[in-house]
């Protein structure tokens, strides 16, 4: 099975955005995440990605997992226009629209296996 990723080093959702000057803001702020992880909101349209973590409180992560966005799952980005919600294919069959703000907190990696 896949390896779980945690974000214990991250501030909680409610915390203000970290001041500028941090080594890599927004993009890959999690020390536990693989360096190649990007926010889902940055994943280009028509790509397959694997969810590696969610930057947020425990309840939020649990809720997203229950909706099908659990760590390790494969997500296909069907539509992603700047400023609009994204449309995702989750667990192959479910189609879900998710707010861009939320997509910014979901960290993903490119998934070569699923893309094939």
């Amino acid at each position, binding site marked *: 099975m896949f390896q*779980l990723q945690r974000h214990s080093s991250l501030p909680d959702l409610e915390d203000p955005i970290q001041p500028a000057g941090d080594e890599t803001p927004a993009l890959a702020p999690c020390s536990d995440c693989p360096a190649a992880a990007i926010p889902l909101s940055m994943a280009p349209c028509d790509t397959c990605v694997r969810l590696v973590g969610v930057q947020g409180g425990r309840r939020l992560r649990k809720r997203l997992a229950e909706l099908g966005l659990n760590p390790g799952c494969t997500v296909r980005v069907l539509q992603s226009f700047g400023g*609009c*919600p994204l449309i995702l294919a989750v667990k192959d069959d479910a189609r879900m629209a998710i707010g861009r703000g939320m997509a910014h907190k979901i960290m993903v990696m490119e998934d070569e296996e699923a893309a094939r």
Partner: protein
Amino acid sequence: MSRACCDVAARPAPTAETHVRVGFHVALAGNPNCGKTTLFNALTGSHQHVGNWPGKTIERKEGHVEIGGSRITLVDLPGTYSLSAFSTEEIVAMDYLLDAQPDAVLVVLDAGNLERNLYLATQILETGLPVIIVLNMMDAAQARGLHIDVERLSRLLGVPVVPTVARSERGLDALKAQLAAEVMRTQPRRPERVVDYGREVEREIARLAALAGAEPSVAAHYDPRWLAVKLLEGDSAVEARLAANGGAPLVSTAREAASRLENMLGDEADILITDRRYGYINGLVRKVVTRPPLDRRTRSDHIDQIVTHPVFGLPIFFAMMWVVFQMTANVSSHFVDWIDGVIGGPLTRWVVAALGAVGLGGTWLESLLTEGVIAGVGGVLVFVPVLAFTYFFIALLEDSGYMARAAFLMDRFMHVLGLHGKSFIPMLLGIGCSVPGVYATRTLENERDRLLTGLLVPFMSCGARLPVYLVVGVAIFGARAGTLVFALYILGMVVALLVGLLLKHTLFRQREEMPFVIELPPYRLPSFKGVLRHTWLRTREFIKHATSIILIASVVVWLLVSIPISPAGSFANVEAGDSALAALSRWMAPAFEPAGFGSWQTASSLVTGFVAKEVIVSTLSVVYVGEAPEAPVEPSTFVQDVAEIGLSFAQAAWDTLRATLSLLPGVNLMDDAPEEAPDAALVGALRQAFTPLSAVAFLVFVLLTAPCVTTMGALRHEFGTKWMAFSVGFMLAIAWTASVLVYQGGRLLGLG
């Protein structure tokens, strides 16, 4: 636990001959969009009762079905993605499963979306209740080339699995047979353990389950293993239940166990459990589902490339909304006029004739029946075509899958108000009439969104307020009235926006951020039968609930008009100025002095305006000009009346058809009816009564004041008496403040 708390309908008493179980209860559970309600409707037909869960604005549907001589009660639980304590819907569903202990649970799954749907199914299996899995929408799954090994799924889960297509009622016989077997079963059936959470977690589960099993007060109510899993997940609703049940030590033991797991495995216990559950489901789906070589984009995905496009999607959306709005607000008016005509014409004549025949003609009873009761019933019935059209189109939008796309497109804009994208449709319908607007809030999944939207809908200026604007506006401002009317509509929307922002940051502040997620179900051709059934059931509910409140209001207003306060008049035969209504209005009028319209005449029109906004115009006419002389009624026979009703119905149906076709661009089959010129006497009286400034203040008050009694009935039906009272008080306060601001502000600027 006792079922008495769930207001179950009276069950047939057991008789000596029958040995089948009576009062067999079956709950329907499932994700939103899995066709659960369609299945419920297909099983129960029209034998159903729609209400709300106690203290909640969540719809509770209960129905019954006769299978093999036994009567089975079905309860449709709210659609949920899981059984955790995240939303009111989930708490309602979980409370029902735990407290009512249904005799069986039908877990409805979308066969084309098995992996996500099985999450809830495994949670319900763990409660230990006897489960029957219904694999619904098998046709759509097969059309996409998915093959599901139903027998293997049943073997692996250890429960019966029945494939169905609820929309075309396929597989229902097999499901009924399964239910009949369930009724006859004498041995308790407990599903075996389903998910294996891994060695470490299982060890903690076993330890907690043993503790729970040793506590008789706990073990009597809950499956120990299910309880152990829930406690490790830290489910707040379950913890609260246990704390109230003397299980507090168990809760703290579970918390220790959860933190032990967290230290050992490096992730929170609830995330671990969710993850393992999906791991199990993933394995299960691989075993039972065979997929065709991946066709990545389904037909729905191709349609969505245009329909949900941020630019191209909008014209499609607005065209759809325009049609829905025209159909509900304008096209339905032909049937409204027909009902109005039948009630005001033949029906009233028959009652008058019947009373005359028994020697009561011309008495107060005649007045009560014709002006109070029949007018009240008519007040309910005229809404029926409007609502039927509304429900029809909403069912069409929902069943086709477009509603979710509309919500997706509108979410960008509605988000500013703290509302969900789906709130747009109730607000839009509110411009036609607040009543369908309020009822349309049912399409929203979340209780908070529903309530907030329902409170904002009455601020949209409805069609019944327009005659008031026009009569007063044209009398005072002449040709410039159009601008005023337009400004009033805009003002209503601006006030809704401000109130929305205010409520969002005060009463409806969300404690924590929850993900905004809209599921986009695949597009489907709606079933005509299903849509019509939905329309009929909903309209019937409205008639049942709205009649009492409208009837009462109508009779109260009749009494106010009929009771004389000076010796000049007798009961039911008084001049407007000598009635109790005038007395009440004189008492109220000073409150409107600061807004510039403190006469008793305007106050009395506002009182009667509670019944229906357009009544304001007729009351103004009566109090300023006097009762219009009644046109002599030509005697007609019963046969002539019936013929007239039939003919006018045919005319209304024909007009509706022509008006519908006229919605097509370039087609105009309707001859524009000439505008009725306002009564010259009324115009003169209004010019004397109002200055331009006080007229504007008056119209602002009419726009923002408490909704009409039918809307109040709808608000009470949907949200309960408390929220209805809140809405009325809140709107009255806003209306008064706004009209005083307009009048006093205008005077300061020297406009008065």
